Each structure stands twice: as structure tokens, then as C-alpha cells.
């Protein structure tokens, strides 16, 4: 009797979670924050080196701050830019967790966007409660199918997904150019490649037009939040997520455990593609209201950075996407106010990734920010 109670006490003790380690905190919070700071400093040095005077540098960073969080409009712009980054970033993060280095978010965004636009302009007289979700769904399905081509090739032939997704990206651009020239797709009366406009019933409604008609924030933000929650649930609470993570961490162990490697690769790619496709649908239904050449504007590549910066964790991706959205929105303001090219923002984004990827470098620059490594 006493033996069983002491046994169950022992089991209870094992259920206690160790306090989150300092190392974990440093890894997840301190390194990214310092990385952003260093990237901004190096960005300033680059401006200095290109003969921008100190006053302008100060003005441009002020503009960056104002343009990203300084006003209602700035916040609205930040969030609007963040939505597709987070959605596509979630897809990529999911792929990374499953051990798939999917470079193809860009192509999946394009294909998803095309599908959403087609559904968006094709069904007049459909009530919005059906039409809008249908257009979103079309984007997700198209993105998912497009990504699963790469997944299938990997599973069936071993073709590496980095290569196939890059090729699919290129194909998607050409597909877009081609389709925008088709008679039933092109806007009547236009000779340049622009699609018909999305019908109002399929648009993601703008949320803040009551305050100011210029605020662009749209209902896609709810899609984004739902996606963060859904991906978190999928990855960490479900059998599917367990299988994704297991085969990402150790494919041999996953096989030993009776998981189906090929099925996991195809499904994980499809899920990732569906999220990227949703990002594309979000752009055409919420921001542009039509498809134009290059409407994806490199979001799929920025999303790779977002997923890496967010450590392939849904919540991390959310924060990383917000940061990148803020940099983008602020960058535009910076260009207007200080005349510094928005390309500098790309440099700063790239530097952030460099520093995130090299935590030792960040530790070396800010030795006082970190606990001494154990050992010596």
C-alpha cells in the first residue's frame, strides 16, 4: 500500500515541468532583440558610408518608427503588410518542422492568388457569406495542390524540394503572365495584363473605414489569427503534427514508429502550400482586388525569413511577421520623409536574419546580455 503511494508520488514529481531555462529565454527572446538592434546600427553605418548625413539618418529612423507604429494609419499599414507574411510564414514553418525546406511559397502565393481572383470575379449575385469564403478556399486549395506537386516528386522520386519548388516558382510567374492575357481573365478594355476586378461580394471587407476611409486593414487579419491558432494546434496537439515533427527531426525514427514518410511529405507540403495560397488569396481579395503581374512582390521569399526568425514556431512567426510588416510599412514612410531608398529596409531585414542565424556573433557583441556558458 505504502509502496504504491510512494510510486505515484514519484510519478507526480516527474510531471513537474522544470522552470524554463535561461538559455531558452536567451535563445528565443534576447538574441532576436539584439539582432534587430545590431541590424539597425549596421543599417545606419551603411547610410553613413554612402554619404547620408547624420541628421537624415536620424530622420529616417524616426520615420521608420512613425511609419510603422506612429499613427492609426501606420498600424493599419503594418498589420496589412504582416498578414500575408504571417500566413505564408506559417506554411513554411510547418514545412521546416516536417523537415521540408520549401522555397516555393512565392509560387504558391501566385497560384493561390490566381485561383482566388478567378472565383472572386466569376460568380456575380452570390451572397458574400458564401462567395468570400469560397474565394479564400479556392486560393488555399490551389496553393496546396501546387505545393503537393513538389511533395509528390520528393516522395515518389526523391527529387529535392528546394530544386522543384524554385522551378515551380518560375513556372508560376509565367503562368500568371499567360493567364492575365487570356480573354476571359483580362479586364475588358485594357491592353495591359490586368485581371478583372474581384466582385465586392468576394472582397475581404476593410475594417476601419468608419474611422478613416484610407485605412486599408481588412478582414484578412482574422484569417491570420485563425491560422496561427490552427497551425499551433495542428503542430503540437494533433497526431498529424506529431508525425510531421517526428519525421522532420528523425526520419528513421518516424519510419520505425510506423509513420508513412511519403504520405507525410505530400500532406505537409500541401498544408504549407494551402497557407501560402491563402496568403495570395488574401492579397488579391483584401488589398489589390485584382491580379497584376508580380502581385506577389516577393512575399514568399520574405516569408522564409519570417519563418526562420520565428524559429518555425507559430507564435514566433506571428511576431516575426509583425516585425517585418512594420519594417515594410515604416520603410515606405522613410522613403517619403527622408528620401532614403526602401532598399535599405531589405538590407536591414537581411541583416536581422544574418544575426539571428549567427547567435554566437550576437553573444560576442553583447557579452553582458548573456549568461556565461557553463563548463570552464
Amino acid at each position: 500500500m505504502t509502496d504504491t503511494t510512494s510510486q505515484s508520488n514519484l510519478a507526480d514529481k516527474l510531471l513537474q515541468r522544470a522552470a524554463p531555462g535561461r538559455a531558452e529565454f536567451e535563445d528565443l527572446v534576447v538574441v532576436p532583440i539584439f539582432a534587430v538592434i545590431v541590424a539597425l546600427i549596421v543599417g545606419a553605418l551603411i547610410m553613413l558610408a554612402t554619404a547620408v548625413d547624420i541628421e537624415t539618418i536620424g530622420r529616417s529612423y524616426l520615420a521608420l518608427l512613425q511609419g510603422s507604429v506612429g499613427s492609426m494609419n501606420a498600424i493599419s499599414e503594418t498589420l496589412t503588410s504582416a498578414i500575408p507574411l504571417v500566413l505564408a510564414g506559417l506554411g513554411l514553418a510547418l514545412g521546416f518542422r516536417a523537415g521540408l525546406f520549401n522555397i516555393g511559397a512565392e509560387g504558391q502565393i501566385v497560384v493561390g492568388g490566381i485561383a482566388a481572383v478567378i472565383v472572386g470575379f466569376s460568380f456575380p449575385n452570390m451572397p458574400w457569406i458564401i462567395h468570400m469564403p469560397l474565394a479564400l478556399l479556392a486560393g488555399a486549395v490551389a496553393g496546396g495542390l501546387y505545393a503537393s506537386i513538389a511533395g509528390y516528386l520528393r516522395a515518389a522520386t526523391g527529387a529535392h524540394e528546394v530544386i522543384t519548388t524554385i522551378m515551380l516558382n518560375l513556372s508560376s510567374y509565367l503562368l500568371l503572365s499567360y493567364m492575365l492575357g487570356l480573354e476571359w481573365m483580362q479586364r475588358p478594355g485594357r491592353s495591359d495584363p490586368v485581371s478583372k476586378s474581384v466582385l465586392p461580394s468576394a472582397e475581404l471587407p476593410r475594417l476601419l473605414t468608419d474611422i478613416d476611409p484610407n485605412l486599408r486593414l481588412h478582414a484578412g487579419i482574422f484569417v491570420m489569427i485563425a491560422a496561427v491558432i490552427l497551425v499551433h494546434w495542428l503542430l503540437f496537439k494533433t497526431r498529424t503534427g506529431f508525425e510531421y515533427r517526428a519525421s522532420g527531426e528523425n526520419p528513421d525514427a518516424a519510419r520505425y514508429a510506423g509513420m508513412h514518410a511519403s504520405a507525410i511529405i505530400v500532406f505537409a507540403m500541401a498544408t504549407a502550400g494551402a497557407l501560402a495560397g491563402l496568403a495570395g488569396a488574401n492579397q488579391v481579395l483584401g488589398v489589390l482586388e485584382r491580379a497584376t503581374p508580380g502581385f506577389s512582390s516577393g512575399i514568399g521569399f520574405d516569408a522564409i525569413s519570417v519563418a526562420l526568425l520565428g524559429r518555425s514556431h507559430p507564435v514566433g512567426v506571428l511576431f516575426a511577421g509583425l516585425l517585418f510588416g512594420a519594417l515594410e510599412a515604416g520603410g515606405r514612410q522613410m522613403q517619403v520623409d527622408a528620401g532614403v531608398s526602401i532598399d535599405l529596409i531589405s538590407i536591414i531585414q537581411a541583416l536581422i536574419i544574418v544575426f539571428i542565424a549567427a547567435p554566437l556573433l550576437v553573444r560576442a557583441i553583447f557579452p553582458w546580455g548573456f549568461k556565461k556558458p557553463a563548463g570552464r
Partner: protein
Amino acid sequence: MDVELRGITKRFGPVTANDNVNLTIRAGEVLGLLGENGAGKSTMMNILSGLYSPDEGEILIDGKRVDFEGPGDGIAAGIGMVHQHFMLVPVFTVAENVILGVEPTGMFDYLDLATARKQVRDINEKYGLQVNPDALIEDLPVGIQQRVEILKVLFRSAEVLILDEPTAVLTPQEVEDFFGIVKSLRDAGKAIVFITHKLHEILEISDRINVLRGGRITGEGDPKSMTENQLAEMMVGRPVSFDVDKGPFKPGETLLDVKNLMVLNENDETAVENVSFHVRSGEVVGIAGVQGNGQSELIEALTGLAHAAGGKIDFLGRDITNVSVRERHRMGMAHVPEDRHKSGMISNFTIYENMVLNTYYEDRFSSGPAIKWPDVLKTAAQYAVDFDVRTPSVYLKAGNLSGGNQQKMVVARELERETKLVIASQPTRGLDVGSIEYIHSRLMGARDEGDGVIIVSSELDEIMALSDRVLVMYDGKIVAEFDATAGPLDKNAIGLAMAGVTA
């Protein structure tokens, strides 16, 4: 060269890895250092090689105090370490690997390979290592690769050689050769520290033995007058039984029936050829053989990880030749894989996730698409208690456990369910005495409850201690069968069959 450690203490946070350790290493002597995993052997040797600096105490070389600042200082002072995991460049030749980092160079940084090869050959001859300096590492068997590691430290003029569990990766024949080399090094005046947890080896090779437990030296002795039991007790801290407790042999119906099984390896060569055998309920079938004679492929085919190229496997009366891994598992087949790091567990997952690695989909852990994590946690904690997995929490990453505890975790996962047939491949490789004893008793428990058990091991002693019936595999075929229930097993005969000598 003599080395003395005086009052060495090393702490990692709250953990005291070494507690006031005194140790003397003498030239021309083999010092056996015995201890369980986590007893502090590695910490001590890392202090000796300069990787860690001690919190207290001092190191004296030939009576003079030295302070090591970094990992290069140990070897500079003549203390060389041969690690358990080799650090060799596979596509380089032996000579290139040996000189890596201390390359003899001429004018304009010209790499003087000719001199290097000559020096390597000289060392070779002096100690009877017999390694071809021009061979590529990737073409060499593990036993020879280890000699290259020894060459590396000798090339750097080490007088003290620390050998960290050197025999863990060797076959019995290779161990024999290896001991010859150790003896010739000793006779040439080198000081050798031989770290292991294998008792018979330490008795065979050492001139003096120190036993480490919980960071302290708990025993010291002369191998000539000590027995394995005494050593084991010093090491574990309680009497250890080497005899496995077994119930009476009561074989039941046939569970597994393998007929004319053919399996190909990765290169499409025949790895298992025409193998037939059966396993009955309540019976332990041991599969002996030198590694690489088809045992791995046989187990993969039995568990569904590899396709059978021919033949038939019946399990519980059903033809499972083409049945999936999961279905076999569900039918009651448990599999402790030979390499837990490669396939048995996921180091980056928590203990509780690893505890359900292949059962997460069952109704007790899942409802609909979701995994019932609270139930998983509770069960995992109970498994950990039942199987004596020593950890502060099941939230810990499995990679942070010691090897023995990792293996106990894997065994717990496989045995804590309704099993009919337990397939255990190298179930105790690299483990300490305490863990071995525990895992053996659990496997025997499964047998006594009526499971069929297959044990594959390259340790003949393990096979002999556990099996009711022994099959010997050689070159993909079962070449001999021995019945342990009829009378004591003839170790010599099994050994000969393993070497391919047919009676």
C-alpha cells in the same frame, strides 16, 4: 611520465561531477578506470586533457604543478585522448588524418606528405599498429580506424594515452588485437588510462584499477586479486547479480514462423539467405553472430522496415510478409532497435513524446485528430517510474538522458503494452552494469509472462545468459542451432560457428 591528480573537484551548477578525486597515472602501467555512465569518468579525463579547468585541486606532471588553459594544453604536455567517437575525415588517407593540424610543411607552406608518411610508418612499426598510411579512412574497418586515432596522439608525442571506452565499437576479435596494441604501448613506457564499464576487460588488461562512483573514487585494487562481483559492487554501490533470474522453461504455441526468408541490403546484395526458424511463446531465442552477418536485415524484415525478397513470415498464424510496421506493432510485436539514436528515439523530443513515439495513435492517447497530452504525460511518468528511468522530469529532452536511461525509456515504451513477441536488438550495448541487469530482468519478465523473445547481440555472454535456444548467423545464413534447455551451452562451439567454422 607520471601524472598525479590531487583533490580535483569540478562542479556544473548544482551537480558535483568530481568530488575530491585523487588519481595517479604511472609510466609503463595500464590504469583501469571503471564507473557507470555519469560517474564522472569523462569529466575527469576532460580535466586531464585541458578541456575543463577544475574548481579545486591540482594536476602534477612528474611532480611539477601544471595549469591547463585550454584543450590544446593537454596534448602539448603529452597527454593524449582517444575518444569513443572517432574524429577522422573519411575521405582523407590515414597519413593525412594523422598529421591534420600539425602538418609538416616546407617552403611556401608546401605540405610534406612524404615525411608525414614516413613518420606514420615509423610509429606503426614501433608499436605494431599495422596501418597502411595510404589507405582511405572510409575504406577501413572500425577497429583500424581506432588505431588511426591512437596514431594521431602518438604522432603528437603523447606519453599518457587516455582511451575512453575503446572496446565499445569493436568485435571480439578486434578487442583481442587491440589489447595486444595496448600492451605493446605499455611495454614501450607509455602510461595508459583505460576507461570502461566492462568488467572482464578491465580485469584482463589493467595493472591497477580505480573505481569511480558519484564523482568519487570508491575503490582501488589489484586486478589479480579482485573478482568481477567485487568490482561491480564498488561500481554500482550494491551487490549485482550476474545470473539472470529465469522462470522454468515452458514453451507454448509457435508465435513466429519464418520460412526461407530472403532479404536484400541497401545495395541489393543478398543479406539474409534462406533463413527459417520459429519462436514459441515463453521462449527466448538468441541470435548470435559477428555484426554485419545479416542480423540487422533479418530484424528489419521481421519488423516490417525492410521488404522480404522471398520467403514467408507468419505471426500469430497470419501471413505478415507484406504487412506494415504499424500493423505488426499493433498485433503485439515489440521492437527495441539496435541503434536507439538512429531510430529508437528522437533526441530533440521530450521524454513523454518519446514514450508514445509509436503508440500515440492508439485510443488511449488520441481522440479524433488530437492527442490527449495530459493522458500521455501521466502514462509517461508512470512508465518512467516503472522502468527506473532516472530523470528530474518527463518534460526533459530525451537527448539529455544518459545512454542507460535512454535505453530504459525505449524498453519501457516497447514492453508497457500488450505484447506477444519482443524483438530486442543489442538491448544493452554501451550500458553500465546496473542498467544491463535491469533490462535483462525486464526481458525475462516478458518471457515468463508468455511472450516470445528474440535477442540479437554481438556479446556472446549476453546471448548465453538469456537464451533458451541460440541460433548463429554467419554470412546471411543460420549456420548452427544450440539448445540451452538440454544442457549448458558450449561457448567454444558457438564462437566457432560465429567465425564460420562449421562442425
